[in-house]
């Protein structure tokens, strides 16, 4: 007898028993520093809204005006009849912002990685990937026909060994893929060394800078931070994090963008995103350029919070960015802490095994440029109180 849909409930239960399922909480209102989570006022510590643009008046205004002018939807795939002049305007804006020849947007950052990576390589090529890369890179890599090699996180010695091994095997193409900022530890890819090794061994470089944009390089991302904008062959990003809106982006040479238009199935077979999304995205990049104090404030908050939470005795791991983990050890403790923080009016996410090692479960604290000193002190005093209560440090 073949199995039918009973498996859905059974397999869900198994996930639930292991504690791997999500409890989804509804926000009753905008994503901001102060949020209403199912009726409870909280400080948001779990969003990627680093520059606090999600509820910014200029983005909202741009979106509303675009709805007035263009309507609510694009009506078609980008390739057929969905591309509007406002999309084209956004592409040019991204290219200018990223200092590349050209750019294009996708539905999401995930869609860029899943759609573009498999088209860049085929049999006889190799993709070389950091072990902690985001799941969307992993999926893009899996969908390709190329060989795949993994190196330990940011271990440049290992990366070089893979490149040497790849040289011996005479691959046609090699691409090194990395996150710009790693989302669990908040550390930055060693971009200068990666690009140097790539040059030495004739490999290409692919970076997903989802957590680096708006944060590094005065908000322009990891390319600007390392002055390597022209050395990174494929720059992937998203408008859904620091830029406060929605949609993925790919920036690079003119030929890359033409190639992506015509080969990436996630682009070709999905509808264009609505015109007001494009309008908000353009506004977001403008705000980053016009209000440089936002990036500065984000870093001020980051430095203050990191210093203070460390002085409470919390291990922040390898954090170098506004992602500041508070490592507490086992998964149960991390979950308990997240629940207690919530009761204190702080919305934070526990990251547990198997996302991180069994003894490295943590709360992932994400800074926001809109947080005041008062907000940060409120979070810190909750940590202080709970670390005694839960015997954390």
């Amino acid at each position: 007898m073949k199995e039918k849909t009973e498996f859905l409930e059974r397999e869900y239960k198994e996930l639930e028993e292991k504690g791997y399922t999500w409890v989804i909480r509804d926000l009753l209102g905008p994503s901001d520093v102060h949020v209403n989570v199912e009726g409870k006022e909280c400080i948001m510590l779990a969003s990627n809204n680093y520059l606090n643009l999600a509820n910014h008046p200029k983005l909202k205004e741009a979106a509303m005006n675009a709805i007035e002018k263009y309507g609510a939807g694009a009506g078609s795939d980008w390739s057929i009849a969905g591309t509007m002049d406002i999309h084209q305007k956004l592409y040019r804006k991204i290219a200018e912002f990223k200092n590349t020849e050209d750019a294009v947007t996708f539905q999401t950052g995930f869609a860029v990685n899943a759609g573009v990576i498999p088209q860049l390589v085929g049999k006889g090529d190799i993709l070389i990937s950091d072990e902690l890369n985001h799941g969307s890179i992993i999926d893009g890599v899996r969908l390709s026909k190329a060989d795949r090699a993994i190196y330990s996180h940011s271990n440049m010695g290992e990366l070089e060994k893979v490149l040497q091994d790849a040289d011996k095997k005479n691959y046609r193409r090699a691409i090194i893929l990395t996150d710009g900022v790693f989302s669990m530890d908040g550390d930055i890819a060693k971009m200068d060394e990666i690009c140097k090794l790539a040059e030495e061994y004739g490999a290409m470089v692919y970076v997903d800078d989802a957590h680096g944009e708006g944060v590094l390089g005065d908000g322009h991302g990891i390319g600007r931070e390392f002055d390597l904008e022209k050395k990174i062959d494929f720059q992937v990003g998203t408008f859904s994090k620091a830029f406060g809106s929605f949609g993925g982006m790919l920036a690079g040479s003119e030929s890359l963008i033409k190639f992506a238009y015509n080969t990436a199935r996630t682009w070709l077979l999905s509808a264009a995103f609505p015109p007001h999304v494009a309008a908000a995205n353009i506004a977001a990049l403008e705000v980053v350029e016009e209000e440089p104090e936002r990036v500065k404030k984000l870093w001020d908050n980051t430095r203050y919070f990191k210093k203070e939470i460390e002085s409470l005795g919390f291990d922040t791991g390898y954090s170098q960015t506004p992602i500041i983990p508070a490592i507490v050890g086992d998964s149960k403790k991390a979950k308990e802490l997240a629940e207690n923080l919530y009761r204190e009016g702080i919305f934070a996410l526990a990251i547990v095994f198997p996302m991180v090692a069994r003894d490295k479960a943590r709360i992932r604290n994400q800074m926001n440029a809109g947080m005041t000193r008062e907000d940060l002190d409120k979070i810190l005093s909750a940590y202080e109180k709970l670390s005694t209560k839960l015997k954390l440090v």
Partner: protein
Amino acid sequence: MTSKIGFIVNPIAGMGGRVGLKGTDGVVKKAEELGAKRVAPFKAEQAVKEFLSMHREEDVKWFTCSNIMGEEELKKAGVEDIEVVYFLKKNREETTADDTKKACKKFLEKNVDLVFFCGGDGTARDIFEVVKDKTPILGIPSGVKMHSGVFGINTSASAKMLHEFVNKRLTIGDVEILDLDEEKYRKGEWNIRIFGVAKGIIEPTYVQVGKTVFKSVSDDEIKDELSEHIADEMNMHPDYLYIFGSGGTIDYIAKKIGVENTLLGIDAVYKKKLVGKDLNEEGLLRVLDKHPKAKVILSPIGAQGFILGRGNLQLSPRVIRRIGLDNIIVVSTPSKLASTPVIRVDTGDKQLDHEFAEKEYMMVVIGYRLSRVVRIQTNNF
């Protein structure tokens, strides 16, 4: 659901260690004369204590042996509900392999979910002889030699593994039982062989589904991928001889490809046909004379991740040199690499070990067309 644990302590395991003997089988007296102390009972008690600190007592039903072979240790650790299924004669200070085996037969009658023991490779071998690959085995390392894949890295790690197993967060997979032939060793011969492939407790391989949602992939699924990878490799180089190493992973791959492989031995395959079965060094050299272009497929063996030097001495330095270091393909399930993050080489030939050491890393195939860099460790440093 309650887990049924068969608990067994080899009270004399590890006594030879401090006094320079490679095991205690048959030489307890000598060990004691040299000043050896009993260490296993204490380690066993510690492991159970640590386990109990993470658990409710009703989660586990303990079956064990009387006196010093488990009962005393459980009691000292604070376990109250104990069912003794094997009785030692009163006042016995020493136990033998025979006691271990008889106790394991009793455990099987009780359908235990796991045999949890404290001892060394010898104890693991005795248990395996009875339970075979029917019941998983987990060891608290307390012997002189702990090459087998059934051990946690220390007392605490074994307790945690038991805890995770009872919570169903660890899974069951193939592990090699290794042993040094003690008789031969005392005569000066270093000969570690694979004794068999048992079921052990392993880290599942997780695949991320959602941001924090993971699915574990069975070891067999991974081994299917490895088989496909090797089949592709053989199709790409049809003119090469392929030498299949020993152990559970390689055996699975060979059988999947359609080769009647020797689980504990070394076989040679040409154009997907077996051209040499269970070969010794001479046999391997002969088949290499006929097919000089060759690759060898190896997988880490036992608890420490040896690819050469444990359980496959037929692959002698002469054989390895003929094949060439670049023609070694190492395959492993990610769960095995999780417990042995380095791969070790001990060929017995200093110069050859040095050549491995100079490579520093090796590419290890962990899935279909998927490999990762793993550090090589040799005895040279």
